[in-house]
């Protein structure tokens, strides 16, 4: 972007600045000009506050004192005051790592100017009330953390009453439903606030904390009903399943452990200790001005927030190494670091460079000695003195990104965001990050056999995308023994899938060049060919003459009637050969011709499909098997580049030339074999993107009906459509279920006979069946839960809207505006990447939806 960045006017005078080519002329003086004016103080405050604790070269104590002095000395200046107060509260929710340091500034200022703390508490109070009303629970948690750090200057019990209130809401939610996960979220917030209170300058809250911990235990330690659904390591067979560790259960145990160690909480920074030191030097009573926390009520019932949740499982790619490079799950640091990291990553999705910088500077924001020095090599960890930390900051950071990338059912942002964060971090500090990524990749690869299948494909997708950003360099020699594995082996399938995806981002010859000799056979010569052959050019092919005629006619853009002639001749010939559905060979010829004519590029094939749309549409209505032949022909033509084929199938779905069911029947019926079809990553891609199209359509309808201010009759129409679409969705999932149950149970035709010949292969195929089944059962459960929850929210919002409208109408008869209502139903637009995925059915369906509205 820098190459387009233009300085405006100035030294260039009236010169026509648009002609970029003159930019490097000598007359254009790029030397930096000395700043000619003193920077206004409020900007200085802003700059210092934004940068607090960021640099490992500056002493954080001095930074804090300097900001405190600036603010105290100039507090009468409204600009400075507002700058400080607003920015401090904004930083709390945007850059969570800095919360303790901002709290420290307030604590340092308090003895000299108690008004500052009072005003900032007021601001924080307003902020937290807004977040509570909106159900923005992450922000609630962060503001609470800030207040927790300030516990030492709060009157009475400080933040404890809020925690108690949150807890009673959690109890309400938990008693109302056993599947509730919002209550868990509230308990998690409580548990994550406690360490900061206990590390704060406040003392004598042990008893209250212990009492609270005792209460949260029942909720936090009970395994959630839906935990199994989101377990990243379900295992291939029942016996190798890993017990999922719920984030909240871990937290509860870690806090109880910490309570027995006098709340050491070693990793939390305590920048307020400088404030304490200063206090000691001053007259005690004046220093100890305490403030009341502004009134904060937790609404009842609480607002659910924009994103339906499922229980969270703790995930680490650095588990069981010989030397601990990340805190073990027994240590509270694992939760504290992870929580701050995840928030930082997810909040700053709008600037991945900033996120990457935070990840790399992680050690600046926690207590000294929490980590080893940056970029310490793994082998050097052996030389670390006994009793000192061996945690690598880059491992801890990378681990957090993977926990999001591989979160089930889906992380907050699109997966590609987490790719980009890792890419960026690797670019900024390759020496530190790249080896950590290497160990993460090895660990994931080792566990590919047991991982949830959806996660295997996410790993594959990230791996290939990441390599494409770094010259496709990977030490393939490490896995060279696995090249010999059979295709049905999960590791081999992963290898094949990754190479295929690399090729899709680049080209076959390039990827081949990065592979050691034993891998060469994995990339066939045929993949390097740009345009696959037109099979009917071979005289041995049946129907080759009429097919060539179709090619000639389509190329010449001949009228439909002319094209019908060779098609009919194929069908007649087929009939005479006893083919049961003569439409199949003619469809094959027609679709293969379209593929061939459109092989030059995506645009070519799209315009070709557009031209042939009507005939293609009519094929499906005449015969379901001919409709599936369309897919067979496409995937056959593109067998060497299945990615192009999958893409075409996707577009054909948009044209409704194909139906979701036909795609699923094709992939999990026609192509299934004994289950071998399940090992190809492009088949999974095809099925899951088809399912996503259908589920997105349902989601869009739900969002549309939940939109604020929609008249009742339109809601009714949408509800009707919704019922229909949900039924369709259910049917589609049922088709998938039926097909997969057969493979998982080993009852597919042909499986039984060969049972003793190739036992291991059979077992693997059954494993594939089970893994697929898990993924799609989860997808169904998640979708159903989502729809259910959103409909409930919509109903609530509508009830509220009605009540408000009535109240308004009573208050002032002339103004009945409904604009101010912001029901939680709107909130669903944020977050979940899947929800924004795209429009099922492309334009046509969009318009349909518009029409309904």
């Amino acid at each position, binding site marked *: *972007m820098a*190459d*387009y*960045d*233009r300085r*405006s*006017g*100035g030294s260039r005078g009236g010169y026509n600045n*648009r002609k*970029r*080519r003159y930019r490097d002329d000598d007359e254009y003086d790029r030397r930096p000009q000395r700043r000619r004016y003193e920077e206004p103080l409020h900007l200085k405050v802003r700059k210092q506050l*934004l940068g607090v604790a960021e640099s490992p070269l500056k002493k954080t104590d001095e930074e804090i004192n300097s900001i405190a002095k600036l603010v105290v000395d100039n507090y009468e200046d409204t600009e400075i005051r507002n700058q400080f107060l*607003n*920015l401090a*509260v*904004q*930083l709390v929710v*945007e*850059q969570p790592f800095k919360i303790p340091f901002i709290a420290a500034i307030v604590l340092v200022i308090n003895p000299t100017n108690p008004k500052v703390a009072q005003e900032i508490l007021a*601001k924080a109070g*307003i*902020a937290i009330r*807004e977040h509570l009303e909106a159900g923005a629970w992450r922000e609630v948690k962060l503001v609470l953390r800030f207040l927790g750090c300030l516990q030492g200057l709060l009157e009475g019990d400080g933040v404890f009453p809020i925690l108690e209130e949150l807890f009673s809401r959690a109890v309400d939610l938990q008693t109302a439903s056993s599947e509730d996960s919002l209550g868990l979220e509230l308990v998690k917030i409580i548990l994550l606030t406690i360490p900061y209170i206990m590390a704060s300058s406040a003392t004598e809250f042990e008893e209250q904390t212990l009492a609270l911990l005792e209460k949260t235990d029942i909720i936090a330690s009970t395994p959630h009903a839906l935990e199994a659904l989101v377990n990243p390591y379900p295992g291939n067979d029942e016996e190798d399943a890993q017990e999922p560790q719920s984030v909240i259960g871990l937290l509860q145990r870690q806090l109880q452990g910490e309570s027995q160690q006098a709340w050491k909480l070693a990793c939390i920074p305590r920048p307020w200790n400088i404030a304490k030191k200063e206090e000691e030097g001053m007259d005690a009573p004046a220093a100890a001005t305490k403030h009341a926390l502004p009134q904060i009520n937790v609404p009842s019932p609480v607002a659910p927030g924009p994103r339906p949740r499922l229980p969270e499982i703790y995930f680490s790619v650095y588990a069981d190494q010989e030397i601990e490079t990340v805190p073990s799950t027994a240590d509270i640091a694992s939760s504290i670091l992870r929580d701050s990291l995840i928030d930082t990553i997810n909040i*700053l*999705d*709008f*600037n*991945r*460079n*900033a996120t990457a910088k935070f990840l790399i500077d992680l050690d600046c924001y926690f207590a000294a000695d929490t980590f080893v020095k940056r970029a310490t090599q793994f082998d050097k960890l052996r030389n670390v003195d006994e009793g000192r930390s061996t945690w690598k900051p880059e491992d801890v950071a990378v681990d957090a990104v993977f926990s999001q990338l591989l979160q089930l059912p889906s992380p907050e*942002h*699109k*997966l*590609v*965001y987490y*790719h*980009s964060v890792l*890419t960026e971090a690797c670019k900024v500090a390759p020496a530190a990050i790249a080896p950590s990524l290497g160990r993460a990749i090895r660990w994931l690869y080792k566990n590919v056999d047991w991982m949830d299948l959806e996660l295997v494909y996410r790993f594959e997708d990230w791996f290939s*995308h990441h390599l*494409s*950003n770094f*010259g496709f360099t990977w030490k393939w020699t490490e896995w060279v023994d696995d090249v010999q594995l059979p295709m049905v082996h999960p590791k081999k399938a992963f290898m094949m899938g990754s190479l295929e995806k690399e090729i*899709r*981002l*680049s*080209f076959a010859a390039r990827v081949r060049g990065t592979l050691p000799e034993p891998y060469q056979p994995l990339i066939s010569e045929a993949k390097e060919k740009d345009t696959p052959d037109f099979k009917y050019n071979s005289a041995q092919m049946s129907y080759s003459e009429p097919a060539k005629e179709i090619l000639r006619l389509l190329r010449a853009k001949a009228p439909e009637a002319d094209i019908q002639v060779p098609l009919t001749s194929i069908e007649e010939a087929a009939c005479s050969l006893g083919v049961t559905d003569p439409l199949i060979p003619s469809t094959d010829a027609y679709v293969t011709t379209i593929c061939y004519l459109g092989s030059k*590029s*995506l*645009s070519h094939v799209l315009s070709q499909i557009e031209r042939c749309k009507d005939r293609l549409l009519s094929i499906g209505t005449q015969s379901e098997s001919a409709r599936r032949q369309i897919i067979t022909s496409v995937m056959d033509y593109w067998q060497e*580049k299945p*990615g*192009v084929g999958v*893409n075409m199938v996707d577009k054909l779905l948009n044209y409704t030339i194909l139906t979701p069911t036909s795609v699923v029947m094709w992939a999990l019926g026609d192509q299934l074999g004994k289950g071998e079809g399940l090992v190809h990553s492009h088949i999974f891609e095809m099925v899951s993107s088809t399912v996503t199209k259908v589920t997105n359509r349902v989601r869009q309808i739900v969002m549309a009906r939940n939109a604020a201010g929609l008249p009742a009759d339109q809601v009714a129409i949408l509800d009707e459509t919704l019922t229909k679409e949900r039924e369709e969705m259910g049917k589609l999932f049922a088709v998938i279920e039926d097909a997969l149950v057969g493979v998982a149970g080993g009852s597919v035709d042909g499986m039984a006979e060969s049972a003793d010949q190739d036992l291991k292969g059979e077992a693997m195929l059954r494993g594939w069946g089970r893994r697929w089944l898990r993924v799609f059962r989860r997808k169904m459960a998640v979708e159903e839960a989502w729809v259910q929850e959103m409909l409930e929210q919509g109903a609530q919002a509508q009830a509220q809207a009605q009540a408000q409208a009535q109240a308004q109408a009573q208050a002032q008869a002339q103004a009945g505006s409904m604009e101010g209502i912001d029901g939680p139903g709107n909130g669903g637009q944020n977050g979940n990447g899947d929800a*924004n*995925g*795209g*429009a099922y059915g*492309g*334009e046509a369906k*969009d318009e349909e939806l518009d029409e309904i509205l």
Partner: protein
Amino acid sequence: MPAATQTTVDRLDKPSAYYLGRNKKRKYGRDRDDDDVGRERTPEEPEDPLKDAATLYVGNLSFYTTEEQIHELFAKCGEIKRLVMGLDRFHKTPCGFCFVEYYNHQDALDCMKYIGGTKLDERIIRTDLDPGFQEGRQYGRGKSGGQVRDEYRDEYDPGRGGYGRAIAEERQKEEDEYGKGR
């Protein structure tokens, strides 16, 4: 709390300085209001043609990058509605840029954040929000048919036809006049 008008770190899903510069000049002539560039666009600005923009201009592509490759990468941010390759005005061959149109505005913003500035075909690509593709814009506006930047570029870029065309021409002329190796 007053609505946060500016995030504590810059956003990557804002139009580039190039786009803003063009617009500003047309609208107000030159004024030195640099702060404007860093300003968060609030949703209430009705005249903003990028408010619902779902199209991106994509630059610094190799001439050899295919639509399929572009699709493969950009589909990671959402379903793509249309992809228009930038072509040399005279030769009708790819000339290193394209337009990607999504169905949703949010997908385009996400693409700015997550894909702009990363590599495709081993080149760092540039994305910019675009008010929408119009027929004719797919052609290079340089003198010799490609993009303007490929006319006068004096570094050798094998992915974009070597030296800039005008530069290459000049070199050729010099060589003809003074002999090889000068």
